[in-house]
């Protein structure tokens, strides 16, 4: 089976420099499992990573993403399944013999070395002459936007963002086929993180390398990635473009991973999809194969206030309980009987509403997402 896969990959010619997203899978996972005792940390994963792609794997802690990453980087061997790199089976190839490189969460910079020595480490391993090494290191420093004067600086005296760049440059010095990232941005403050996310994406574009980024933050993944895979309990719940994950989540887990949503558990009755309290909802776009029970998900940003005189497919009357400022937008907590709903609206659209006001909220069937259980 592996041989067949290998042959298939070899047979697919891709022209060099075909743009930063080509179609050839550089890294393939087929039924990859990792079992610790009785517990399957990774429970059957199939993913193709295409050449030059930026893929993020997102999941809550304990979803198995770190174990997956360790297998990809060569620090664990899968219990079952195949990992192939450019068609070669690499299940048991140790980390030092894989043309892949991991940027650690801790960055794992060598504290006793200078910025230059850190970046040159993989080149030194390859026995590149010192002069050539230095030239390449300076080149990489320019690429990650580190000033040349940092070459001789002790790496522990760099700021958080600078260390990030050193770690990146060191990874690039290794010249790997695939770069893995173990949420290296998680320790940074919000502003720096946002800036570096964008820079990382720029670097991805410039380098043309395949990036696989592991994170627990879907927001981070969305900003940078060509594709996002959402992991849950050792499996990939869904993988697709950020757009697909956002608009067409396959289940409640994926939908709720984005943050707060309004959800309605509905059952299929004679009159249509009915909530527990007997309200029949106007629903559209029910995916194939969903029947009997389903969940209707309405994101706070698609839920809206329905002023008197206008209409929506579904409406609910309630009272504004509280309001939260999100900057350019406002979020309202609306109580309707026992239930609590969230509505997000721009400041102008919701003008003048405040806590205690009786309101009608609603959504159009097309804006809701229906997922099976």
């Amino acid at each position, binding site marked *: 089976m592996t041989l067949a896969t290998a042959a298939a990959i070899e047979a697919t010619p891709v022209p060099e420099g075909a743009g930063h997203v080509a179609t050839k899978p550089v890294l393939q996972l087929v039924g990859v499992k990792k079992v610790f005792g009785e517990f399957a940390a990774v429970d059957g994963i199939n993913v193709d990573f295409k050449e030059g792609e930026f893929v993020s794997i997102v999941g809550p802690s304990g979803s198995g993403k770190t174990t997956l990453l360790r297998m990809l980087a060569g620090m664990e061997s899968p219990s079952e399944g195949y990992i192939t790199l450019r068609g070669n089976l690499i299940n048991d190839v140790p980390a030092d013999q894989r043309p892949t490189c991991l940027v*650690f969460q801790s960055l794992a910079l060598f*504290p006793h070395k200078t910025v230059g020595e850190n970046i040159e480490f993989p080149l030194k391993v390859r026995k590149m002459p010192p002069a050539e090494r230095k030239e390449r290191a300076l080149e990489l420093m320019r690429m990650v936007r580190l000033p040349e004067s940092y070459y001789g600086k002790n790496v522990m005296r760099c700021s958080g963002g600078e260390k990030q760049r050193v770690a990146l440059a060191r990874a690039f010095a290794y010249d790997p086929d695939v770069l893995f990232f173990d949420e290296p941005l998680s320790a940074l403050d919000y502003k720096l993180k946002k800036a570096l996310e964008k820079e990382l994406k720029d670097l991805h574009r410039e380098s043309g390398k395949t990036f696989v980024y592991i994170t627990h933050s879907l927001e981070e993944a969305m900003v940078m990635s060509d594709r996002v895979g959402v992991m849950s309990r050792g499996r990939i719940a869904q993988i697709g473009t950020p757009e697909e994950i956002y608009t067409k989540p396959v289940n409640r887990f994926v939908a709720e991973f984005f943050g707060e949503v309004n959800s309605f558990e509905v059952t299929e009755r004679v009159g249509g999809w009915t909530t527990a309290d007997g309200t029949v909802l106007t629903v559209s776009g029910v995916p194939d194969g969903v029947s009997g029970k389903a969940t209707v998900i309405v994101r706070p940003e698609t839920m809206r206030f329905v002023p008197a005189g206008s209409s929506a497919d579904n409406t609910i009357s309630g009272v504004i309980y509280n309001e939260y400022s999100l900057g350019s937008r406002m979020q309202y907590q609306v109580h309707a009987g026992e239930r609590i709903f969230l509505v997000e609206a721009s400041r102008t659209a919701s003008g003048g509403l405040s806590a205690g006001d009786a309101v009608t909220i609603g959504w159009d069937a097309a804006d809701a997402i229906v997922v099976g259980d």
Partner: protein
Amino acid sequence: MAVALDTSAAPPAKTAETMSISPGLRSASPVLILLGLGFLAPLITVAAYAFAAPKSFDVFRSFTLENFAAIFDPQNTVWTSFVWSLIFAFLTVVLLAVIAYPIAYGMNRMFGKWAGFVSVLFVFPLFVSENVRLYGWVLFFIKNGVLDGALKWLGFAGGPEVLYTPGAILFGMLYVYLPFMLFPMSLGIAMIPRDLVDAARDLGASRLMIWREVELPLAMPGILIGMLLTFVLGAGAVAESKILGGQSIITIAQDIEVAFTYAQNWPLGSALALILVAIVSGLALYVLSKLDLDRILGRR
């Protein structure tokens, strides 16, 4: 601002406040007194004795360089004791570094964060007097002792005659000073973050390369402290050569002991001790100045 300028321009007034002892000095005074009486005073006394008239107790009353002249007299063979002590100390340090590193490394791999505790177990024998432990080894190596007797009982020709040789002295020193090398070394190795080793490996480094480029430099502070400790202790070793070596070799510490006790020549003993202190501290300071701990630790 103006106030600050005024005070800086005028000479500081000797008020009651500036005359009094600062809180820091007051807090440090118990330790200062203890160090002064327990450490500095004996050292000064020894130094003073070194310049006293030979075979006298005229400390602080006479001043002469005769003791040193006697030591540096070409007829005097005391220099061989210095050489032996330093050779044994040096061999102990080198061999212990080689022996203790794999043990410390293995313990850290096996026991992880419990390695510190396990290496305390190695220190346990220190609770038994060094002499008692060394006599235990005498019983082990002596003719018809544990080793020799057991081998004969098993039908062999008998154990090798190792007792009362320089080799036995070295063995005794390695045995006695192992914990002093192992403990700091183990702490040093425990300071190597796992991630760094994984990262070096991920970047293609071989086992040897990881050891040379990452593990060794990061464990260096602990290794250095262990080396320094064992060197200082080894240079002052006396029991091993007396008990296991049967005085086949005279160490400098033994010469000093003899001068103070048997010979009742305190000034000569003090002069020898002073020279030993000068050599050991000189070597230690030289080595430490060559190695920048802060740089190794990445604090700079």
